[in-house]
């Protein structure tokens, strides 16, 4: 089966700056692909190239096997998009803004406007002018415009921007539902790994224009650093004892010990028994996992060092 999104050495230079650098990517049908990167990493440039808004300096991009080119008009009705902060015609109401896109998307059924507004809880704001909407509702209107034609592929650039926690959960559930029930392929960019990892089936990390890591969401778990944290009444003595047992304890800033040996993480009870037998019973012993944001920053840092 043909990938929904495919890129080959996709690159874009702005002067000497490589905003997107030889990106190879494939997104298959039904996937939710989380495209992660810090601000300025190249996410929006990449998204604009996928939507035919910016021409690649070199390399190619295909959507549903067709070249991502503005001239492929048939293609764009299979794609919904939201790029950066969504704006709408300020002096038009929510209903009028949606009506514009119903017509420009060549949708015959007038009910499409009401139905998408209901889905995004915009019903009470139908007669409100776009300029008077809160940031969260403006974001919902942006999503409604992207979804009104029930696209097979949804390309979203930071869709959680401006939403409150309730809105974020709501959008996440909506996207999951679209993926599950309608088989919509979703390409979603973000700079928050924690947010994307709850949704995405696959994650790609872009940094300084380059794809530095790609992983299935379930494999992400294995790549995060796990460690055993131990604290006793005399951590220095405990460290010496553990070294004798061929573990590699490190002293943390707060004075407690950190052990990253696989044996220690798999069997913290052995460490506990050993320290008790040496009259240094642990006052605290916990297996911790590197949180997603630290993992994200570590990957970026490691990349900075190697490049």
């Amino acid at each position, binding site marked *: 089966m043909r990938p929904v999104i495919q890129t080959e050495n996709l690159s874009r230079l702005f002067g000497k700056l490589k905003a997107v650098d030889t990106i190879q990517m494939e997104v298959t049908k039904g996937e939710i692909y989380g495209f992660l990167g810090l601000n300025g990493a190249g996410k929006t440039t990449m998204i604009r190239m996928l939507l035919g808004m*910016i021409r690649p300096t070199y390399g190619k991009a295909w959507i549903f096997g067709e070249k991502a080119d503005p001239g492929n008009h048939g293609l764009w*009705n299979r794609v919904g998009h939201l*790029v950066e902060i969504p*704006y709408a*015609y300020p002096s038009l109401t929510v209903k009028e803004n949606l*009506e514009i896109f119903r017509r420009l*998307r*060549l949708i015959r059924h007038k009910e499409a406007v009401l139905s998408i507004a209901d889905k995004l809880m915009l019903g009470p704001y139908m007669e409100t002018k776009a300029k008077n909407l809160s940031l969260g509702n403006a974001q919902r209107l942006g999503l409604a415009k992207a979804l009104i034609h029930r696209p097979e592929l949804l390309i979203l650039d930071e869709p959680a921007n401006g939403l409150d926690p309730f809105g974020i959960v709501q959008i996440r559930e909506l996207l999951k539902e679209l993926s599950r029930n309608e088989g919509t392929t979703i390409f979603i960019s973000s700079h928050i790994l924690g947010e994307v990892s709850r949704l995405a089936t696959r994650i790609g990390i872009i940094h300084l224009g380059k794809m530095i890591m790609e992983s299935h969401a379930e494999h992400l778990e294995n790549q995060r650093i796990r460690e055993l944290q131990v604290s006793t009444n005399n951590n220095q003595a405990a460290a010496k004892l553990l070294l004798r047992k061929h573990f590699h304890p490190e002293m943390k800033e707060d004075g407690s010990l950190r052990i990253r040996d696989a044996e220690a993480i798999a069997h913290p009870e052995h460490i506990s028994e050993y320290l008790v037998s040496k009259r240094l019973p642990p006052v605290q012993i916990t297996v911790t996992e590197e949180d997603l944001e630290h993992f994200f920053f570590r990957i970026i840092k490691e990349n900075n060092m190697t490049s």
Partner: protein
Amino acid sequence: MSTMRPAIWTEALKLRKSAVFKVSLYFFIFIGIMMGLLMYLSMHPEMASRSSTLEFKTSFLGGSTWQGFFGLLMQLILTLGMIGSGIVTSWMFGREYSDRVIKDLLALPVSRSTIVLSKFILLFLWCILLMVLMLISALLTGALIGLPGWSDTDLISFLRSYAVCGILNTLLIMPVAFVASAGKGYMLPISFVILFLILTQFIFVGFPDLAVWFPWALPALVSGVAGPIAPDPRPVSWLLYSAVVAAGAAGTMLWWRYADHQ
């Protein structure tokens, strides 16, 4: 062409709901009335004598008759018409950038060229509407104040020139549309319109012989309002004018189609 209808519908909605559209209608009606009132002052110079500025202006009207009034309206459509059509064009294209909604118009089943074409069609109709409103309000005011010297022949000849010059002026929106798209906003195209209006005046005053080579001068050359010092338009004037209009239209379409939209 099945995508042309929705494109025109959406452009018409955006236009109809905008304050700029309503203000432009009121403004051109107001100007038409004001011109009529200026003629009234010209008929009654004793009222204007208290103000030296008014006296100065009314002395320029070329007689307090319908013929003088038609001449005034021709000058108006050539100057205010050019500024007015330039401003509404700057708004029509520039707003997509200043309202930051341009990106919503770029990946649609309706082609970018269709959107540009629908904008051109509505702009043309809008400019013609403004011209007609100003004309009607001016003629009605002229009739109300009892301007003397009415002649059907003069009216027909004036209407013909007014329509031709108005249309020639309106077609010059094409390069303005290109500047608004490439400049991504209002400021550059409005400055462009003002610059070319000044250049046109400058050429007529300083180098009238060059006017035949300057496309923006063609409407005035055709109208004959510049007086005997201005030459008649030559085939090359029409050729250069057509080239500028065509380049503006093609440039705008190509810009929307091929430029990077960041």
